[in-house]
């Protein structure tokens, strides 16, 4: 992915600036604390850091927002992952009797990775992405967001750009955080339609009746298919891509088409309509466009996933939350990088320094600089998300205080 001259060598210098001035600690803590409804929720949360030279440390935990800030500034992590809420403070797990230290809760998460689509995209492969194949992510988000809300009843979904080649979804509802491993696995499988590895040619097989979930998902795919598959990916332009498509068409249909060449169009369409393989067009569209998720990421309560607002060390891009109102115009290549964010911030704050010389230095520093950078709109969106989440805490907190008064 062309990342405009990014070089990981800049990280040791830029990360401290990023953490000192731009990382939204207040919002981050507000999120992970979940209103303080459950005791020690933030304190028992596991974080893992990847430091310089690929040193990986797990079981990091913090008592307060201040401690988190201090440690991050001290350790300067290249990568930050968020894990589960455990039964005890993760950084004390060695002192706990073996067997009793357990992962209890975590958001339900999904990870969509562009490399899982390599067999159906022609513009890029592996870690590259471009505007042509990014549509796959747009489709994935639309489909999964609808299903998680309408079918499963979840309300607080945070979609985050991973920083390189995919998107993550954090489902933050209380019911989601309390799901068992079996339940998470069931949700992920309900959402899976594309199955099979390299050895499987036909990865989507539909049978009658078509479940409402499949119909809804197809509706989304059909909206994007002509522009995406036919124009941008050009799946019917070159012989080898046409062959790939034909490999997904059932033998008897192909045979009928061949006959039609001799018999004429009317007989053909009637015959195809009556044949058993009516779903092959849908199956082809789904195989090319339907979201491919990694069930293993969603299954585990203790699974660690890249944190929102962390930097992706390979591209320098910041993992920003995505506003679904603007999903169709989201451009991953326009997401702020650590360089653009910090540099811009430095330039702006110099102007500001000149204008605001009277103000107290400490006060100036206190104003979170992100407000003046390209990161602003993402933090603002994160705030809105948190406001929505906060409504659910308020009810809980009232209930709790009522109970205490009774006793």
């Amino acid at each position, binding site marked *: 992915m062309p990342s405009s001259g990014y070089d990981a060598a800049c990280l040791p210098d830029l990360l401290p600036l990023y953490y000192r001035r731009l990382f939204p600690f207040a919002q981050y803590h507000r999120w992970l604390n979940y209103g303080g409804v459950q005791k020690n929720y933030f304190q028992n949360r596991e974080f893992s850091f990847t430091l310089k030279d*690929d040193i990986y440390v797990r079981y990091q935990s913090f008592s307060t927002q201040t401690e988190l800030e201090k440690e991050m500034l001290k350790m300067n992590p290249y990568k930050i992952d968020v894990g589960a809420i455990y039964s005890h403070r993760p950084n004390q797990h060695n002192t706990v009797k073996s067997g009793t230290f357990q992962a209890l809760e975590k958001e339900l998460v999904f990870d969509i990775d562009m*490399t*899982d*689509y*390599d*067999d159906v995209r022609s513009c890029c492969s592996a870690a590259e992405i471009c505007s042509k194949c990014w549509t796959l992510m747009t489709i994935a988000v639309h489909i999964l967001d609808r299903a998680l809300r*309408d*079918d*499963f*009843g*979840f309300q607080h979904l945070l979609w985050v750009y991973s920083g390189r080649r995919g998107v993550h979804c954090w489902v933050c509802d209380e*019911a989601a955080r309390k*799901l*068992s491993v*079996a*339940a998470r*696995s*069931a*949700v992920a*499988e*309900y959402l899976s339609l*594309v*199955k*099979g*590895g*390299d*050895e*499987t*040619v*036909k*990865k989507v097989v539909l049978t009658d*009746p*078509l*479940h*409402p*979930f499949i*119909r809804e998902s197809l509706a989304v795919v059909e909206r994007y298919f002509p522009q995406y598959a036919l124009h941008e990916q050009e799946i019917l332009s070159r012989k080898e891509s046409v062959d790939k498509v034909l490999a997904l068409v059932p033998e008897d249909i192909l045979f009928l088409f061949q006959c039609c060449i001799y018999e004429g169009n009317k007989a053909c369409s009637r015959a195809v309509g009556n044949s058993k393989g009516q779903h092959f067009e849908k199956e082809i569209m789904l195989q090319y466009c339907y979201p*491919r998720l*990694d*069930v293993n990421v969603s299954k585990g309560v203790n699974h660690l996933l890249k944190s929102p607002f962390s930097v992706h060390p390979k591209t320098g891009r910041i993992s920003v939350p995505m506003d679904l109102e603007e999903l169709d115009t989201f451009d991953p290549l326009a997401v702020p990088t650590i360089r653009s964010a910090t540099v811009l911030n430095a330039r702006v704050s110099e102007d500001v320094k000149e204008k605001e010389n009277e103000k107290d230095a400490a006060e100036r520093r206190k104003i979170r600089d992100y407000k003046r950078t390209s990161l602003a709109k993402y933090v603002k969106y994160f705030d809105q998300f948190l406001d929505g989440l906060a409504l659910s805490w308020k009810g809980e907190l009232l209930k709790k205080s009522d109970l205490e008064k009774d006793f």
Partner: protein
Amino acid sequence: MQFSGRRRKVITSPQVELYGQALQFYGQPPLENMSLSEFESFAVDRLKLLKTIENLGVSYVKLSDDYKRKLDNESRNLNFPYRPDAVPDDRKSQVGPSEYEKRRKDHISHFILRLAYCQTEDLRRWFIQQEVDLFRYRFNGLQPKQKVEFLHKNNLQYDTISVEEKKTLQDKLVNSSHNVSGITVEDQDFYKVPFQDALDLVRTRKVYLKAGYVYIPHQDIVAIVLNDFRTRLSKALALTARSLPAVHSDERLQPLLNHLSHAYVGQDYSIQKNVGKISLEQIDSLSVKSFPLCMRQLHQALRDSHHLRHGGRMQYGLFLKGIGLSLEQALQFWRSEFIRGKVDADKFDKAYAYGIRHMFGKEGKRADYTPYSCMKVILSNLPSQGDHHGCPFRHSDPELLKQKLQFYKVSPSGISQILELVKGMHYQLACQKYFELTHSIEEASFSLNHPNQYFIESQRVLGGGKDIKREVGTPQRSQENSAARGSTTDREAAAAANAAKDLPEMTEDLDSFFQDA
């Protein structure tokens, strides 16, 4: 405490009341004294039943006619209940144990096995899976009235939806499941159940899901019941595990329980024999001659692309451990292959070496992971884009499988036999047929259920039987033991002999014990 006074006036004992129902949730443990020999024989019989269930579940569609018939037979032979409409006190038409006695055996044996199978995650998972399948088969055999009775007696109350709501959702309800028609919607009550209580239906998308609730017709309430059974059993096992130390302090029980949990789940190839007997240079030719198709495929993919994804590394790496590769050999093997690809030595040491050491129990929680059985390869860890693991008979397109077999020079008639078996979902039988064809033997003397078993049997055939004494342990002694206790199959004997290093001693102790008793 106030109730016991009233209870004493009731004549029938709670036990008879408990066995009044054909099916139970095993909520209450048995409260009686019994002899040790009955204790063990009950447990062993139930194990045989559960093992049968496991095997049938892989070879047949669950609840198909063949499946039910075979399970009926096995239940009858082992004196377990199999006809839910039999009345407990009916002794007239019985030869052998009465229905009451069968239900008592069922009850007691379940709780004994809980003791043996609560200790590790793997054992629990296996036990729960088989018990759920057993329960499903029995619940399926109940009459509709008995099903409703069962639900009410076990407190499963879910809300029904109104007629108006049914009408509005009619199309969606009909399209969500095969056995819901317009008539079903009109005639039956539909229940609104939280999706967490119906995971099997959600997982397979066989139900209508809206705003976190699934809508289930009365006829399908089975799945809910199963889920409930599974959850209760899971919690119960966790509790049982905590009281184990007390049980183990009884010296009569500990060897018995250990024997139960090791012997009949079968050989898991976790204890490495012949470590270091295989050199890395031999692997290429071994992969052609003695590896099952799944491992041959993985090895080929590894040689071709100098890389395997996580699922493939696990399946193949553990298999290699099982055939006798040492940790040092494994590290060398993976490293030299990965270096030929896009990974440099440094990156390998940082990113992949840890995983390999983890497999050998040298990192993390130091669990010594066991090589995957066929069951595990077929059913879990499904391959997706870019993967080469899984079972080729299950996960490959039949066309691709055919081409591959042709490339590996299997005869056309052999290939069609294999494809027939695959069509019938008999994946392990298909692999066994592949074994027979590639080793030019008429019929395999074993029943395939593990890739490492395939390897050992293959080496045995190719080595002309020379390796038997070294690898398989003490088959003669175990056959004596088994004969004395009445079990018959070779596989069980081998399993009983091989499963634990000190098992021969234990079975000898048990035998002499029973002679005294």
